[in-house]
């Protein structure tokens, strides 16, 4: 073997090692899940809890928490359906929880073991329970809406005084979308949060499961597709804060996070969010226990801790989502409590709806319509 060949072999081995190490750094982020007595393994959404909540809980109870994060319900669901995830407490959105319960991936919770459950907002909890079909599925952590986030100056520049910043038409009317093409429009890559809202914009019932209604919504989206910058659920927070896009269909809390980031960066971008007056869907993220959880008692302790009014208020003040906790409202920042995009007005509430849990056939229709929109035909 000549020297250069030897060197090549060494090079390839180094490359292989480097690839291997790459995988390893990615895996290192998912910290190891243990199942000892004083442990608790939590899997929650990213950016969804105040910075010191976990450390405060650990200091108070002596329980060692492993806290992992996901950024989509789909990722959580795949782990739950594969089984043996090792997690003791997860926070799926109610429709995903309903499906997971049907598959046997979650256990019933004994709400009487959670004294602080008395703090819960009964109205919100009842809406979530209706989706999951059980009063024992879990307790609502936070809830929110899907609406439109926009850059105030960029919209004013293009629409003047009468910008339709109270309606879905800001993005869904092709005439308006064309005006926004140059500054950038983004849409969530979440068909079950987008298609039902477009159905309400078109005058159909958002809870409809009729194929023709989904198709009509898909066509309305296809009509504005040439003007869209991208369809993605996690990129728009940064991009709208930086001014790379100017309007986006977004989840309420994401929009406020973007507004906060723009304010922090002092880049001159002012971001606001509204619930369109045609109506929108509400979602509820529920604290639930997987069927094969090992540290069940600790999970109950944690849920009880999270349901304390002061803890719940701190979390809301940090993440800017509406809380399922009624008692917390006394300590929530008035700016959050009075914002109609977070805590909707009574009038807006009349038009809010809850997306039904689709059966597998409807799932396929929704995905097919969505994929055709993505493909542009």
């Amino acid at each position, binding site marked *: 073997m000549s020297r250069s060949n030897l060197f090549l072999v060494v090079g390839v081995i180094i490359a292989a090692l480097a690839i291997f190490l790459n995988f390893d750094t990615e895996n290192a982020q998912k910290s190891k899940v243990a199942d000892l007595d004083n442990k608790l393994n939590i899997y929650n959404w990213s950016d969804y809890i105040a910075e010191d909540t976990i450390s405060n809980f650990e200091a108070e109870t002596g329980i060692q928490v492993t806290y992992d994060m996901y950024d989509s319900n*789909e990722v959580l669901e795949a782990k*739950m*359906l594969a089984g043996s995830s090792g997690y003791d407490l997860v926070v799926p959105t109610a429709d995903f929880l309903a499906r997971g319960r049907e598959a046997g991936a979650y256990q019933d919770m004994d709400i009487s073991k959670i004294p602080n459950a008395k703090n819960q907002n009964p109205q919100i909890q009842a809406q979530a329970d209706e989706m999951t079909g059980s009063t024992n599925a879990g307790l609502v952590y936070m809830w929110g809406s899907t609406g439109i986030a926009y850059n105030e100056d960029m919209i004013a520049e293009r629409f003047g005084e009468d910008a339709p910043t109270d309606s879905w038409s800001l993005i869904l009317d092709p005439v308006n979308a064309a005006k926004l093409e140059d500054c950038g429009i983004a849409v969530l890559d979440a068909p079950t949060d987008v298609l039902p809202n477009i159905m309400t914009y078109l005058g159909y019932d958002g809870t409809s499961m009729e194929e023709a209604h989904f198709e009509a919504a898909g066509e309305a989206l296809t009509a504005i597709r040439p003007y869209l910058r991208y369809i993605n659920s996690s990129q728009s927070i940064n991009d709208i804060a930086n001014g790379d896009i100017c309007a986006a269909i977004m989840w309420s809390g994401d929009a406020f996070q973007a507004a906060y980031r723009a304010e922090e960066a002092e880049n001159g971008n002012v971001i606001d969010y509204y619930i369109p007056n045609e109506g929108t869907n509400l979602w509820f993220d529920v604290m639930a226990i997987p069927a094969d959880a090992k540290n069940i008692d600790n999970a109950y302790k944690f849920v009880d801790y999270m349901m304390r009014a002061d803890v719940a208020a701190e979390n809301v003040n940090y993440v800017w989502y509406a809380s399922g906790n009624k008692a917390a409202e006394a300590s929530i920042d008035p700016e959050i409590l009075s914002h109609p995009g977070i805590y909707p007005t009574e009038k807006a509430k009349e038009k809010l709806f809850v997306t039904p849990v689709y059966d597998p056939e409807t*799932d396929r229709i929704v995905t097919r319509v969505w994929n055709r929109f993505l493909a542009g035909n």
Partner: protein
Amino acid sequence: MNYFFQRFGRQIVIWLPLAWLLLFFMLPLIEMINVSFSEARRAVPPYNPAFQFGPGGISFQPVVDNYYLIYEYWEDYLWPAVNSIRLAFFSTLYCLLFAYPMAWWIARSNKSLQHILLILVLMPFWTSSLLRMYALIGLLNPNGFINDILIWAGVTVIPIQMMQTDFSIYAGMVLTYLPLMILPLYASLVRLDGSIIEAAADLGARKWDIFKTIILPLSIPGIIAGSLLVFIPAVGEFVIPALLGGPEQLMLGKVIWTEFFRNRDWPVASAIAIILIAIIILPIVYARYQDKEGIS
């Protein structure tokens, strides 16, 4: 001991990687084939395995519904498939165009410089590919580094849209896969006997003729190996189009993701993956078969 290695060393060297491949490549592949012939259901796991063995004995009840569904809605899968092949093909081509001069230059430089250059080629592998993609986003964004410079230099007034285009995909693919093209090219070019080129030049061949009739034909094994190393992962790429691409850059990786996560249909997702593997592997097998025919 010495005798042992002389006798079995060769066997160990051959069988160890083979066992590794069997365990971590063949078994998952077989499981994927199994899932692709299984029936989807709402349970843990979300499919009813076609092949089962346990206390009740062995049972094998394959269903072809998953493949039939893809056949029925083939129009929905064709466009992303064509798109994947198109983007992977041009990514491979651009890799080749960039890699060839670099590999040639490395192969022709003196030995000590070669070592340094090869390390430089491999260097990008030392940072996570995800980080490199985010760095690229920072460069290509409308408010990113490149547009800032172009606007400052007066080349353009409004930012050039580079993200969410074919260009951003190619940039990401070339950045990720270029070393996989350079290394095999280098390996075949470094073996090229310099005296042949000198002889051709002495006999009056022009530079282009030397390249066309001597260098290029002799480097074909390297071109094939490098192209396969780039094309195969590129065609199934998920991360790069997800981060850098827009709706126009929909690839099969995302379609499989959708079936898996959104329809919760693991069997159909597996079936698409199997079909994709078949589409990639069959031409290679065919080419090799042709090769052998040609030799005999």
